[in-house]
């Protein structure tokens, strides 16, 4: 059980990294300017 949760956490980390990379892409940046992402 511990190993499964541990693996899920690692996968969540990888997902987070790719999500951040995708969200930070220049195209996304144009849509959401600095500091304006959420008001």
């Amino acid at each position: 059980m511990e190993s499964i949760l541990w693996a899920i956490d690692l996968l969540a980390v990888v997902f987070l990294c790719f999500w951040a990379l995708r969200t930070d892409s220049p195209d996304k940046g144009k849509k959401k300017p600095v500091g304006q992402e959420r008001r």
Partner: protein
Amino acid sequence: MRDLVLLAILPFIIYTMAKRPFIGIGMWIWTALFYPNAWVYGPAGNLRYNLLFTSVAILSYLCMRAKPKMVLGVLGSLVLLFFFWTTMSTVLTLAPSKVSWDIWTRFAKVITLFVFVLLVIEKKLHVDFFLWCVVLSVGFYANLEALKFIASGGGHKIAGFPGHVLGDRNELAVAFAMTLPICYYLLGEYGKSARYIRLALLGTMGLLVAAVIGTQSRGGFVAMAGLGAYLFIKSNRKIPMAILGGMLIFGLSLIVSDDWTARMNSIETADADASFMGRVVAWKLSFILAMQNPIFGGGFKSLEYFPVWASLSRDFFSYSWFYTGDLLPNTEVARAAHSVYFQVMGEHGFGGLLIFLTLLAGTFFKASSLSRKVKRLGGPEWIRSVATMLQLSLFAYALGGAALSFAYFELYYAIIALIIVLELRILPAALKQQNQVPVEVPLPTVPSLARQQ
């Protein structure tokens, strides 16, 4: 099997880190707090993840095209001044030179992370990513251990990994308490976007509370109770919070053992508790150490060096106003200071303590003023939210750290760096952007032009 999973995901993580320096900085704190080596037993355990991630993060920054301008401010300067002070105290250390320089090296890594946060983090996504990394390291460990604690009916005693920065259960408890407000912030920002994120964060918050209890740390419990009270005072939703808190206390009361209750009750009678008074003795010896070396103190780990401890013990009966009960210093083994304040006082003198306290109080009040400034200037709401929650994390650290040697904790310095970046880089950029947003004004109709066409 764990080795395979870790080695399989490693190239993907390194790829994203190389592409974006802010991912590198986030993974830097993740690996420092998660301690991947402790989870694997095979060949993957031989890799130095911290060194690997740090190197990739630094290289990624060096290759970055448009590097943001470095922001430091008064708080950043204070951190660097404190580091300089610790360097001087290490040069003049009373402890074995190798031991002191070893701790100095570790602290230098913490300061390097601090500097890189200042260099790289420049927008909301970066801040959020960094905080997610904290949750996926400390929060994950809390989840896992709290589940064991609950499944064992309160029998499992939560502890950290030996050799880790959070190896001691008291330090672990304070780190858990510091992570709670971070989860609360992320819940507000991302909880509405997906149900599973909301549930995961709410679950993590509940399990963080259970994990603090599971460590049986009185310092952690005091930090969490203080945090709860502070959050309650600051919250606009007092009634739902009181109901949730009551439910949580009721649920946990069914789990905690008599041993735990007896241990927490000893907080009220601390002056009669040998364990607590043992700490007070260490505090007094730290104070004597600072009195003998008022400017730079005794250096890292000087109090824990037995010849220094024994020498200080000879002056134990001076400063009789410093109450220590009936307890005397241990005559066989030296002990740690068991308080961030006395630790800094003894190791870096009154000069070092002054910088440390100014830094702590300065960051705490800076977070408040930042929150007010955002409100006044109509800046992004998320900056207010994150500043308030980071302030709460600092509050938990200041309270919990009063009873444990935890002055050089990565997360504390990272939070200071985040507050600096929020105030000096992100808020001005956001306000500038706001002012530059073109207002849509309908074009005037010129009859003459219309006629010409």
